[in-house]
């Protein structure tokens, strides 16, 4: 009996251990030099368009630079693997960690290599400096205390989406002002659709799709900049209060889809694509995100959120967001990382990215191609816009970001009044102001 038990235990133990040990983890030690050239490890967030483009770019670079060896790996929650690597001092050489990484904490802790010197060097194709190849309004978003830390690659434009076929069928015109919106919504309801839906589970969509556009429309870009810069009183300014009241107005009139507050992004976006709702806030990633599950024949088109009649703000104001790449300070081979990133940001590669992945890039002139149809309107609006802005306070100050999401959720489902809403935001901003350990950022236009 004992021998059998022991035998069984040791056999399965050995087997188990063997399998557990052999099947690898993904924490390969940083490769040493193999061949004449250097090695580069690139880790990328894996989203709607995957990482194939970057892997392909790596192969092309290797062909042009024999001896250099580049590996590109990624995952949908890759920041979780990167966190301990940063703490241990063994990060990759070049990385796009994704939305779950606290970029600014890395920057404050000197974990990110500033690339100002690199930007002054020539671009990959030799024409002009590397810095000149970037759209300055996007490059600016990665700066801190005058130094460049984050590098943009692709960027997203945030706005509202509607189905042009549905609008055409019912003879509806795209509302350009809030008043037009209020006139249109009852007609939409009469046709059996919800006028608006939103991603209730993720209130940052509502912050970006409803709150800030209306704050800017009412109070000008300064109202938003002051808030993001934590100017005292900015979060409960008249602009914020009015914008919150506009949200309440829509809710009270029943213009939001029933139950939207409990919907995830895919659920609400599916509802939009299936025609249950007429309009939804989202970014230019909408199509690539929903591609696999869209009902056949679903159509979408981009529109700017309706502006406020008589508002101070620039009606062409447009919201963008960059997806930052960084070069970790403790990563090996900065030079190779920079050179490879230069290759990725060369004009041809940038143009190819747009076509292949369906998203715009931060490289000047990259949109001078036949754009994928859904990007035509957003790209045009971006080019013509006189005020390009981005929401960054939530990445700068995570506690303020969390509280703003909670407060927005409460505003959207009615448990907070607009007055309570702005008070909460101002209180959260005050807490951050009081916290001397938090570096201060300013946003200007």
């Amino acid at each position, binding site marked *: 009996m004992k021998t059998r038990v022991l035998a069984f235990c040791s056999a399965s133990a050995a087997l188990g251990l063997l399998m557990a040990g052999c099947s690898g983890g993904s924490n390969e030690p940083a490769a040493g030099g193999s061949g004449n050239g250097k090695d580069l490890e690139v880790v990328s967030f894996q989203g709607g368009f995957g990482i194939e483009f970057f892997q392909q770019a790596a192969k092309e670079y290797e062909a042009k630079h024999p001896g250099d060896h580049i590996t590109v790996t990624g995952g949908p929650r890759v920041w979780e693997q990167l966190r301990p690597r940063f703490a241990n*001092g063994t990060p990759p050489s070049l990385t796009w960690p994704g939305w779950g990484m*606290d970029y600014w904490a890395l920057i404050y802790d000197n974990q990110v290599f500033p690339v100002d010197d690199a930007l002054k060097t020539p671009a990959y194709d030799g024409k002009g400096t590397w810095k000149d190849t970037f759209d300055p309004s996007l490059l600016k978003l990665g700066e801190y205390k005058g130094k460049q830390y984050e590098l943009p690659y692709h960027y997203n434009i945030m706005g509202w989406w509607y189905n042009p076929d549905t609008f055409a069928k019912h003879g509806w015109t795209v509302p350009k002002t809030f008043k037009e919106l209020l006139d249109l919504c009852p007609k939409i309801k009469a046709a059996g659709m919800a006028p608006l839906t939103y991603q209730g589970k993720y209130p940052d969509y509502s912050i970006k799709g409803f709150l800030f556009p209306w704050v800017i429309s009412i109070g000008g870009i300064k109202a938003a900049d002051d808030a993001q810069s934590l100017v005292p009183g900015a979060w409960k300014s008249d602009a914020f209060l009015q914008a919150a009241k506009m949200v309440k107005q829509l809710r009270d009139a029943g213009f939001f889809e029933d*139950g939207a*507050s*409990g919907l995830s992004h895919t659920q609400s976006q599916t509802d939009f694509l299936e025609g249950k709702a007429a309009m939804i806030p989202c970014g230019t990633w909408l199509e690539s995100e929903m591609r696999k599950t869209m009902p056949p024949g679903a159509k979408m088109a981009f529109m700017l959120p309706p502006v406020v009649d008589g508002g101070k703000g620039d009606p062409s104001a447009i919201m963008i967001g960059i997806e930052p790449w960084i070069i970790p300070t403790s990563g090996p081979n900065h030079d190779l990382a920079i050179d490879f990133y230069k290759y990725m940001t060369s004009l041809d590669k940038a143009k190819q990215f747009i076509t292949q992945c369906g998203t715009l890039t931060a490289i000047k002139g990259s949109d001078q191609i036949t754009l994928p149809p859904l990007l035509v309107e957003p790209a045009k609006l971006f080019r013509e816009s006189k005020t390009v802005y981005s929401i960054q306070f939530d990445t700068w100050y995570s*506690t303020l970001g969390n509280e703003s999401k909670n*407060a927005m959720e409460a505003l959207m*489902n009615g*448990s907070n009044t607009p007055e309570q809403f702005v008070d909460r935001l101002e209180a959260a901003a005050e807490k951050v102001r009081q916290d001397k350990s938090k570096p201060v950022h300013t946003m200007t236009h």
Partner: protein
Amino acid sequence: MKNRGRTAFIVTYLAPAVLLYGVFVILPVLQAVGYSLFKWSGLSSKKTYVGFDNFKQLFHDDVFWQALLHNAWIFLFGGSAILIVAIAVAHGMQGESRATKALRSVYLFPNIMSLVVVAILWEFVYDPHIGLLTSVMKLFGGGATHRSGAAGIDTSILGSPTQALPAVIVTFVWFAVGFYIMLFSAGIRQIPQEVAEASKLDGAEGLFRFRKITLPLLWSVGRIAVIYLVINTLNVFALVFLMTQGGPDRKTEVMLTYLYEQAFVNSDYGAATALAIANFVIVMAVSGIVLRLTRKDPTGVSH
């Protein structure tokens, strides 16, 4: 003769367990106590000593007290529901009929399932579009959504500030009750046969017998059950994290979901470990109080 190699034996046979436990459980605990005295993002080696600041900050943190309150609700309401159902079912399960045999086979089902499966399943049960519960509600004229209160809050169940926590508690009870049924079954079995027989002869029947005989004799089991409840409700994490992530607007936030946020979203490891220590201290304190309060049981036997 018994001492022949006794010490060597003790050491050898305890060593693997003590070593593993010491390195992977005790050591991290001690380190956690250490981290709580620093400000650390967890993203680099830069740590700043701040003494008890993390604890002071925790004490003044509204979210912490809110979370603790929710843990308390889960303990009080979920716990009571569990106790009542468990005792009732355990009592009713004592026979040998086919029905009770069948019941004995299935009562543990929810408890042996992965919390992930439970959380996702019940998320769908509550889902406004395809949900089990909501389609039942529709039968009775209710909606997947509702307008509650003067403000006319219009949400789904898990998105409702008032309904989310009760919904989570219901799921928790469904999941956890099996274990307590087992506990109380064991307790009832232990009631000496003679006492049960004697009381029957005396004419004590049904509810009366239950109240006067069964219940007091379940006292010691009850204590164990309550202690388990304290631990499980104060340490609840996966269920809440998966179903609501602490939302909407922190209405289902519990201590451990907030800990996760502090550590992995706010990059504030010092605050996270301070919270973990506070959580542990609270569990120990409440358990201690419960043990003390329940020392004497109604039969006059002190424990």
